């Protein structure tokens, strides 16, 4: 027995005991104290008081992925953002942009009160006014257009009211507003984004994007996507891609002109010549079909072509042909094709690399076909349809304007279902359309568009744009040119309905104010209500009823309170509490998979196209010779082996590899490869490509200090051989010249790029967007010297804000998909000339106008279109006449 007297109370004894205890520490630690981080999020505590912080769920809008987030609020102030563990597709994770998003709220360069221009347009002279005064001014301008339309009996006049957005996640609010005004002129940004990917996919199988089952796949071919850093659904896709590669041992093969972080993470990386991904995909299809590696049943049952037709069509696209075009060895193309076809399940993913070219839609259709012929569509671990959910619009909902808009639906691009926003200023400057009121929302074309200087000229000229109102809370290069600014709040202070198909679990989510709009600012939705009430004060126009919401929250309730399932769960109130619906399960702490209460994985649903039609649905339906089931003139499904399935969202309800709608306008109805003009460049010229980085959006994040510190300059990537041939070394000043003019930037010499390519990232080189984006505090000290912010004072160690390449990028529109050909500009690169200064930009507006004329030659009515499509069996002299689309 140990007695008190027997204790050896010496330091040596203590230390000995301590040392022994340390060796078995794991078994001695308190079982009641756990690290906060181990709770996997959802809670947070004040570092000062220890009190639990208020957690408010929201949906991110730092970029377009719409991840689920939770804001932690202390003393009415957002102190931290993190992922929402209840969101089934983003599973509690935010990217760097998302984590930094709260800095948008407190940015001292945020516009927090309406501003009315007092000087010349773009001169930077303003006076502040109230939201009510601003709404009155805008309403009066809109009413003038409406009254003129009524007076002259011409509803087309209302299309002079233009709404241009870069990011519209309002869940129908903008359409409601514009339709209430009688205008169809809503212009999105999609053609500078991935519209030709969408148009390559939509007529093929219905939706505009794929949702790969990365986590369960065994083989991935990545065409031109930097999915681990950027691209569509980056955060959820990146998580599941890592799950697939690490946990499921999937092989990842990337084709990218640049060694992106995704390419670097791949098992194999190939750098093809820009715009030749389609040739590679077609060659792979050639191998798969000719070697009998295709899924014969799937091709027979679910496509509108036969295996024989495909083999015949693919005959010229040999791996050797693809090697000649792309530079990728034929033996590798052949091997990868065999691996892809014989490793099950497998999937492709593609993003801007293939589609952001002239004829980009062909390239996307070719890549899509690889999944079809191998039968990987809608299989576990395969290439799946996107899964989203809808919500109803509150009634009454205004009808569309009476007259189609030439700007929103340009007649020369009848297949471009996502419009051609790049062409809008050219069309107006050439008198093809007229503007009276121009409104912009989340839009910065003066920075973000090709030949961006032309947009500045356009918006500065009051003869083209008589009145311009911006709803931006930030003074962007574009908003600087406004006559009136009615600032929206940031995405953490407002309401929006959301549903993004960012994974295999369909869900609804919301944005809600996690704090009261800062400093009495007003959310956009309320501004729309106020403006309509002022446009129609006495209900004489009959449009006030479309905005009869007492509060913005009432508007949201009208969306969500009556959705079956959600209604029983609590409707809008349930979404306010959780931020997302349905709740599929919990994120397992070990595997990060979604599990139910018993710990079993919640399986996603596959084979959506195989869902059976019910007897009542089939009743009175007809089946045509192709097997398409039609009812009341609409295709509702497809009959296979006597069974009715819902099929795909196409006219035949099958996957349409052959697209008759393309042939009608002289385009090849099958996926083909067309050699681009850049492929014919001179030997000493290079192709200019751009790319996004993991901590920035295109334009909006350069003002956030933590992101600006991570990435703020964008030297041009050049291959060592290419640089040496020009006597250029890393860090040298270089001049990059296109037909539009030149920029002066610096070289980053690296093996990680194709020798005939120069790559410059976006997100840098701002002339506006706050003091950090411009490094104004250094350029004009003390103009921006605000004092003691220790970060800005001591930690802004960089003197380089980068150089933006867009002014020298030429307008080039895919005549099918309408996409801007971001990667089609051919440039010469030399060492900078005497007198050149870093950041110099010299460009021509006249040349930009010539580029517009040139790109129209590729439209379906143009001479270059016909010359490039001699193989198409169509009556070239009787193509459909350009026509305005009915409705919107």
């Amino acid at each position, binding site marked *: 027995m140990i007695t008190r007297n027997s204790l050896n109370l010496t330091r040596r004894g203590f230390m000995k005991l301590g040392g022994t205890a340390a060796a078995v520490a794991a078994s001695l630690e308190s079982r009641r104290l756990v690290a906060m981080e181990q709770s996997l999020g959802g809670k947070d505590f004040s570092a000062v008081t220890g009190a639990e912080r208020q957690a408010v769920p929201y949906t991110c809008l730092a970029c377009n992925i719409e991840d689920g987030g939770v804001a932690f609020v202390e003393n009415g102030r957002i102190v931290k953002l993190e992922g929402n563990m209840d969101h089934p597709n983003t599973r509690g994770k935010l990217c760097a942009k998302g984590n930094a998003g709260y800095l948008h709220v407190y940015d001292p360069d945020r516009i927090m009160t309406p501003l009315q221009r007092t000087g010349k347009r773009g001169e930077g002279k*303003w*006076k502040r006014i109230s939201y009510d005064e601003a709404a009155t001014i805008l309403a009066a301008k809109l009413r003038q257009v409406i009254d003129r339309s009524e007076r002259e009996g011409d509803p087309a006049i209302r299309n002079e009211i233009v709404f241009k957005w870069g990011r519209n996640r309002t869940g129908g609010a903008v359409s409601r507003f514009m339709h209430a005004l009688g205008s169809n002129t809503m212009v999105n940004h999609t053609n500078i984004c991935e519209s030709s990917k969408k148009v390559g996919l939509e007529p093929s199988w219905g939706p505009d994007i794929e949702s790969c089952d990365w986590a369960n796949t065994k083989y991935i071919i990545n065409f031109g996507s930097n999915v681990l850093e950027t691209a569509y659904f980056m955060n959820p896709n990146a998580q599941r891609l890592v799950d697939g590669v690490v946990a499921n041992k999937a092989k990842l093969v990337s084709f990218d002109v640049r060694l992106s972080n995704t390419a670097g993470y791949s098992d194999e990386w190939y750098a093809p010549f820009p715009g030749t991904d389609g040739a590679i995909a077609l060659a792979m299809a050639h191998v798969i079909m000719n070697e009998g590696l295709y899924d014969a049943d799937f091709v027979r049952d679910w496509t509108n072509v036969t295996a024989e037709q495909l083999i015949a069509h693919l005959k010229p696209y040999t791996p050797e042909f693809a090697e000649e075009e792309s530079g990728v060895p034929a033996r590798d193309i052949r091997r990868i094709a065999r691996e892809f076809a014989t490793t099950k399940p497998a999937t492709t993913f593609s993003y801007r690399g293939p589609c952001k070219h002239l004829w980009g839609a062909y390239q996307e259709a070719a890549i899509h076909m690889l999944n079809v012929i191998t039968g990987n569509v809608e299989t576990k671990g395969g290439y799946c349809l996107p899964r989203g959910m809808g919500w109803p619009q509150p009634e009454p909902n205004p009808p569309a304007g009476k007259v189609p808009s030439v700007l929103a639906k340009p007649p020369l691009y009848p297949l471009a279902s996502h419009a051609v926003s790049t062409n809008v200023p050219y069309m107006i400057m050439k008198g093809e359309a007229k503007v009276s009121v121009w409104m912009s929302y989340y839009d910065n074309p003066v920075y973000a568009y090709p030949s961006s200087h032309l947009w500045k000229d356009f918006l500065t000229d009051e003869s083209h744009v008589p009145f311009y109102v911006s709803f931006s809370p930030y003074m962007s290069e574009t908003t600087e040119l406004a006559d009136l600014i009615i600032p929206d709040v940031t995405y953490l202070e407002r309401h929006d309905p959301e549903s993004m198909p960012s994974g295999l679990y369909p869900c609804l989510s919301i944005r809600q104010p996690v704090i009261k709009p800062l400093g009495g600012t007003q959310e956009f939705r309320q501004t729309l209500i106020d403006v309509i009430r002022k446009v129609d004060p006495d209900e004489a126009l009959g449009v006030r009823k479309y905005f009869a919401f007492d509060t913005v929250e009432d508007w949201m309730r009208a969306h969500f309170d009556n959705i079956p399932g959600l209604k029983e769960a609590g409707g809008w109130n349930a979404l306010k509490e959780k931020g997302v619906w349905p709740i599929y399960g919990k994120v397992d702490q070990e595997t990060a998979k979604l599990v139910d209460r018993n710990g079993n994985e919640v399986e996603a649903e596959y084979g959506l196209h195989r869902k059976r039609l019910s007897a009542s649905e089939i009743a009175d339906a007809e089946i045509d010779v192709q097997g398409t089931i039609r009812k009341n003139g609409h295709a509702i499904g497809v009959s296979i082996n006597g069974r009715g399935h819902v099929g795909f969202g196409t006219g035949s309800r099958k996957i349409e590899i052959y697209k008759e709608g393309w042939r009608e306008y002289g385009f090849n109805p099958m996926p083909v490869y067309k050699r681009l003009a850049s492929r014919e460049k001179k030997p000493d010229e290079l192709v200019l490509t751009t790319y996004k980085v993991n901590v920035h959006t295109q334009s909006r994040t350069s003002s956030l200090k933590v992101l600006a510190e991570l990435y703020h300059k964008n030297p041009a990537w050049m291959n060592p051989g290419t640089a040496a041939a020009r006597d250029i070394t890393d860090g040298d000043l270089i001049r990059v010249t296109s037909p539009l003019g030149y920029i002066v930037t610096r070289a980053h010499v690296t093996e990680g790029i194709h020798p005939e390519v120069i790559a410059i990232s976006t997100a840098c080189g701002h002339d506006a967007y706050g003091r950090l984006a411009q490094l104004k505090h250094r350029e004009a000290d003390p*103009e921006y010297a605000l004092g003691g912010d220790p*970060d800005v004072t001591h930690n802004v160690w960089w003197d380089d804000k980068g150089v933006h390449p867009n002014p020298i990028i030429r307008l080039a529109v895919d005549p099918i998909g309408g996409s801007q050909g971001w990667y089609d500009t051919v440039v010469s690169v030399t060492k900078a000339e005497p007198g050149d200064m870093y950041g110099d930009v010299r460009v021509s507006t006249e040349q930009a106008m010539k580029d517009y004329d040139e790109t129209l030659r590729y439209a379906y009515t143009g001479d270059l279109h016909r010359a490039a499509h001699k193989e198409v069996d169509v009556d070239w002299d009787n193509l459909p006449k350009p026509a305005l689309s009915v409705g919107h």
Partner: protein
Amino acid sequence: MDLSQNTVSPARGGATKCEEAAVSPAGGHGARAAECDALAGLYRFLGRCLEEEVDADFLALLTGPLRPALTEIGLVLDDSLVQSDAAAFLASTAEEFTALFVAPGAVSPYRSVFEKGRNFQEPCDEAIAAYRQAGLEFQNRYSGEFPDHVGVMLGFVGWLAEREAESLGVADEVAADAWRVRRETFLLEQLGPWAPGWCRRARILAQHAFYRQVLELTERVLWHDLQALADRRRFKELERLNRRAPVRLDYDADFRKASGL
């Protein structure tokens, strides 16, 4: 004479005692009360100048009752401009006010931005706490206004001085001293560390003579009062704090490759 359209207003149920006191007959502390009244007027004037744009009523004061005193201290309005076209004067000062204090890139008039680089941070809480202790609450008149606006804070100093004067008017020296302590504490702790330096920077950037003069006057008044309140060591500290400006770190272009990657 109410110079201020101050956005700090009595809270519901608060400050009643002060207001009741204000209607009581004047007591015997005439000189100090008069001094406090003058102080109240001065700070309310400065606060009004910086808190919001000049409007017609304020212009009438500037060109009327206030004119002799302003002229005496050197704040001279351009007669020809003001009298020939008051509307143009109001428009030009409104434009300048927006450029200087409101629009992006302005010299943000908020202590939070000065101290923390962001709007609506802890200095806001400190200002609100001081207002509440005095029975006031902050209400913005335009969106994007916060409690730690330099104009509002100056106006609050004036309000405190007025309360002190009122207390003296009813011979309540204990209350007067309490108001004085509040005023001096607020001046030393919430305005002293940044407002004079902010005035200096804003004055450098001001393009309109009116604001250049107002900002110079405000800086001088603040330094004068701070010097009277602070001991030597504290005053030196305030001088140092008000010299704060971004430090330009030496940048070695060769240290990082152009790629920086």
